[in-house]
């Protein structure tokens, strides 16, 4: 009964089975194809176009032809003081913000994991900032930093500290951007670390406790090595995002004061749209792309993350 049913049905009599069998045989390519095609279309075209644009001087007037300048746009990078400022600002921002987020996120995750493990509700509350639209975050902090009626200056006043212009102050603007970014993205590190801590094995800790290892020793010799892959992914994702910081700066400072918060994305945006020089913007974009790819490839190889 069973044999005759499976023997006669599906394969032989169903119409279109030829196509189905073909699809089944090539399933490994068919399942991959849409993603590969979409990404090819959406990345190859922009990349080729960027290379093409980067070696041309493009006039804001669409009727004028593009003028071939070879490596000219790239040579400009070397002597463009604004570009150097933007590069420096991006570096400072990335290093300070990501390091702070990492330390705070890991610390908080360890604390919660040790002292209040079961309160998922509390964990979710602490994760809220990373889910909010960055633009809403930027507006919120703009309101808090407002020099005249902002709440931060009210707190400073109550504590008897000097009032500041925060996002408008030459020395504090980058600090203000970093604080807002840390507020939004520490929860992301926190979430990844919590997930990592939740999957730690128990046995090594029991053995370590028997051997009389202190909590610090346990952390250094067990927790940190176990968390290494999670830490690597968290840092990689955060650095990649920090390198393309835009929203916060766009709303909070617009790059000022005195270019102190002008980061690469913002400068490229200004060059492309305000100064209408897309060729040069393309050259800068390629530079950013290369730096990002080189950094992350190096990092992934070092951390053995690929496959």
């Amino acid at each position, binding site marked *: 009964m069973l044999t005759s049913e*499976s023997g006669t049905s599906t394969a032989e009599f169903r119409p279109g089975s030829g196509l*189905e069998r073909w699809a*089944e045989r090539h*399933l*490994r390519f068919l*399942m*991959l194809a*849409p*993603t*590969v095609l979409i*990404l090819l279309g*959406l990345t190859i*075209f*922009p990349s080729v*176009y*960027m290379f093409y*644009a980067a070696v041309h001087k493009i006039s804001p007037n669409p009727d004028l032809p593009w003028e071939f300048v070879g490596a000219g746009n790239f040579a400009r990078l070397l002597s463009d003081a604004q570009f150097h400022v933007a590069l420096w600002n991006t570096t400072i921002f990335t290093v300070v913000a990501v390091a702070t987020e990492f330390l705070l996120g890991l610390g*908080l995750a360890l*604390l*919660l994991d040790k002292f*209040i493990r079961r309160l*998922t509700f*509390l*964990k*979710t509350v*602490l*994760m*809220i*900032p990373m*889910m909010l*639209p*960055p*633009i*809403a975050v930027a*507006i*919120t*902090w703009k*309101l*808090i930093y407002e020099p*005249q*009626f902002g709440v931060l200056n*009210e707190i400073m*006043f109550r504590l008897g500290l000097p009032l500041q212009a925060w996002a408008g102050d030459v020395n504090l603007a980058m600090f203000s951007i970093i604080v807002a970014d840390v*507020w939004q993205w520490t929860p992301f590190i926190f979430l990844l670390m919590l*997930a990592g801590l939740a*999957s730690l094995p128990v046995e090594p800790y029991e053995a370590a406790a028997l051997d009389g290892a202190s909590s610090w020793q346990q952390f250094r010799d067990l927790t940190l090595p176990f968390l290494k*892959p999670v830490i*690597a992914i968290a840092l990689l994702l955060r650095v*990649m995002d920090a*390198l*393309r910081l835009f929203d916060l700066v*766009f709303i909070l400072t617009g790059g000022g004061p005195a270019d102190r918060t002008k980061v690469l*994305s913002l400068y490229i945006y200004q060059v492309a749209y305000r100064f209408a020089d897309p060729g040069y913007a393309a050259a800068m*974009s390629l530079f950013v792309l290369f730096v*990002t*790819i080189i950094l*992350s490839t190096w990092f992934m190889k070092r951390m053995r*993350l*690929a*496959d």
Partner: protein
Amino acid sequence: MTMAKTIHARSRTKEVLIRLSAYLTILVALVVTLFPIYWIASNSFKFDIDIFAVPPEWLPVNPTLKHYDQAFIQRPFLRYALNSFLVAVGTTMVSVTFGTMAGYALARFSYPWQWRKQISFWILSTRMMPPIVSIIPLYLFFNYFDMLNTKSALIVAYTAFNLPFATWMMKSYFQDLPVELEEAAIVDGDTRWGAFLHVALPLARPGLAATAIFCLIISWNEFLLSLIITLTEQSQTLPIGIAGRVTQYNTYWGEISAAGFMACVPIVIFAFIVQKHLVRGLSLGAVKG
């Protein structure tokens, strides 16, 4: 005897102190996390004159819905929110569908000439491209196909960022699932595709949920691409609508606070509904590396 007791008591006091300072730190973290959200919410219910009050009003003494009326009735923020929603859902559907198939393929099948590793890495590397890099060509691309100011253009653009992410999340998920169950299904007469659909997919549900959640949040929040691709009310998303009220001459704080708070609310509600998947999804999949 007494000495042992003293030592015991001392270590207990120490234990209590450590516990207290841990709770205190967590409390501070909670206050710092929640205060800015409270502040924008509170300001959205104040009259302009109370927003500018010095010293600030910690609570809206004279609450009003004026700014909500302004943002959602007088101005098209509801339209922006609907656009954001449609774009986020569209992007998530496309990215999760294709990303899941590609992730499964990369986790389960073998390819000639080490393709698997190469393709995996290439797919991830497309995620590294800073949006600012692809904006100018994408703009021209959409211009050429007459797609500027459409929601489809935004869905296409956002898919470029979400698809690699979805593929990698799902790939690490399927790698963690035991392959034997699918093999058993095939032995029982199911096709390869059937085994994926009926066996692997249901098992990967937490991974699917986590991936979809992240795609939704990323698309709902995106700003830069939308800023450049859309200029009309029919296509602009909520973040652009909000940013548009910070002008060179005036910042409409009340209205912005109302719209900003309303942009946060659905995401926060959503986060609480799916919180289980969020942590579990990450701890099972992507994080393992």
